[in-house]
């Protein structure tokens, strides 16, 4: 068995992706090869020695066909997940045609990127790789695509960056949102851009793979899709008995994402999901990107603070949020910023 360890370099996205595709294709065809993929951002590479160290060659022995990827570490230290790539390749669902042209918007070393590459390989479709995963490069490559899979935060970033109206001119057949909750406002915006596209939002994780997809233009997951799923008393979804860290609430026949277990502010003993505050902000006209975070408070433990990009004035946003959120979730501070930071996985930065 041959084991290859890769840690790509920034600026070489196309070359690295081409290498990766070649090897993934070989594994899918039965080559006795396993891969360990380290992320290629500077921050990740700086931490690489902590995660992998010199033991990497000894930590992942075994038969060929294994793929070791790292979680994005949005809320915690990234952790290695070992996948049977051949099994994942064969069991991957979703239809496609060779004429489909998917635009890569995810780090190909992460599961989201691998998942897209796998779909492209399985359906013999085409993959368009931008020069980098920066919004401007993605916009430059977008006109050649017919299909795109993107995080809601990156989609908003594309809208904010799109000064020449690329999004409105591109005719997409498929738009898939993943990695974060797709709010109704995101789905509506995408529909306004691409009236005839199939718009899907997926719930997936590096640990559990693809879990669920929805294409009815509505936020949340229909109850019937999750009949038989097990939740804790707090609403955390369990998959195969394992906690997912994601809290859901059932309302009017649909499951709505409440937030991550770790992404909570403890305000005077009350748990406030930061995602709930962000979703409320993003539902307000003029707010294009939002990040809620906990700040320490001597009096009540923690308070919620919010930063956002958009045209709404902070005072107006604060007033609107007070109408939509319980008092414990009211941001104690609302700041308009030039740019809400996204993680290298294209999600709202949490660290």
């Amino acid at each position, binding site marked *: 068995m041959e084991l290859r360890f890769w840690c790509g370099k920034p600026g070489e996205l196309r070359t690295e992706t081409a290498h990766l595709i070649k090897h993934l294709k070989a594994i899918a065809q039965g080559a006795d090869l396993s891969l360990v993929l380290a992320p290629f951002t500077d921050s990740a590479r700086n931490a690489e020695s902590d995660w992998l160290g010199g033991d990497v060659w000894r930590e992942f022995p075994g038969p060929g066909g294994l793929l070791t990827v790292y979680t994005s570490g949005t809320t915690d230290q990234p952790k290695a997940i070992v996948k049977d790539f051949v099994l994942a390749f064969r069991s991957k669902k979703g239809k496609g045609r060779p004429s489909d042209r998917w635009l890569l918007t995810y780090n190909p070393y992460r599961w989201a990127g691998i998942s897209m590459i796998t779909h492209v390989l399985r359906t013999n479709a085409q993959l368009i790789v931008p020069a980098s995963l920066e919004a401007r490069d993605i916009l430059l490559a977008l006109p050649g695509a017919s299909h795109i899979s993107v995080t809601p935060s990156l989609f908003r970033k594309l809208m904010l960056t799109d000064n020449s109206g690329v999004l409105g001119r591109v005719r997409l057949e498929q738009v898939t949102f993943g990695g974060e909750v797709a709010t109704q406002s995101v789905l509506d915006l995408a529909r306004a851009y691409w009236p005839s596209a199939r718009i899907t939002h997926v719930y997936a994780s590096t640990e559990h793979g693809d879990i669920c997809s929805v294409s009815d233009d509505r936020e949340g997951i229909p109850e019937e899709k999750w009949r038989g799923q097990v939740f804790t008393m707090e609403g955390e979804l369990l998959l195969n008995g394992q906690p997912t860290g994601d809290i859901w609430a059932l309302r009017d026949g649909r499951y709505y994402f409440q937030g991550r277990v770790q992404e909570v502010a403890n*305000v*005077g003993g009350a748990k406030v999901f930061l995602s709930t505050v962000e979703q409320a902000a993003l539902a307000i006209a003029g707010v294009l990107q939002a990040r809620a975070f906990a*700040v*320490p*408070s*001597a*009096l*009540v433990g923690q*308070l919620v*603070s919010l930063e956002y990009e958009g045209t709404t004035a902070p*005072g107006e946003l*604060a*007033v609107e949020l*007070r109408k939509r959120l319980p*008092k*414990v979730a*009211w941001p*104690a*501070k609302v700041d308009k910023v030039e740019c809400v930071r996204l993680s290298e996985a294209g999600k709202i930065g949490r660290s």
Partner: protein
Amino acid sequence: MKSKEEILARLKEVVEGVSLGSRKASSISDSDMLITGLGLDSLDYASVLLGMEQWLGIHIREEGVNWREIQSVSQLADFLRNEQGR
């Protein structure tokens, strides 16, 4: 270090901000009680403290503070002034 007068002026602005303008800074007096007079609850009070912490560039200690003794605008200004030098 900010003077008590500067802290009082800013404190009243922050209270106005937290109350979204329902309490105007100009109508708040130094002797007004934050909770019983201005109608702040513990979350409002915490938000006012956060605003003042950030403005003063300080971090208020979590222990050893008797909040019951800090009831008026003036008392809070005194407390914050002392926290600056801590």
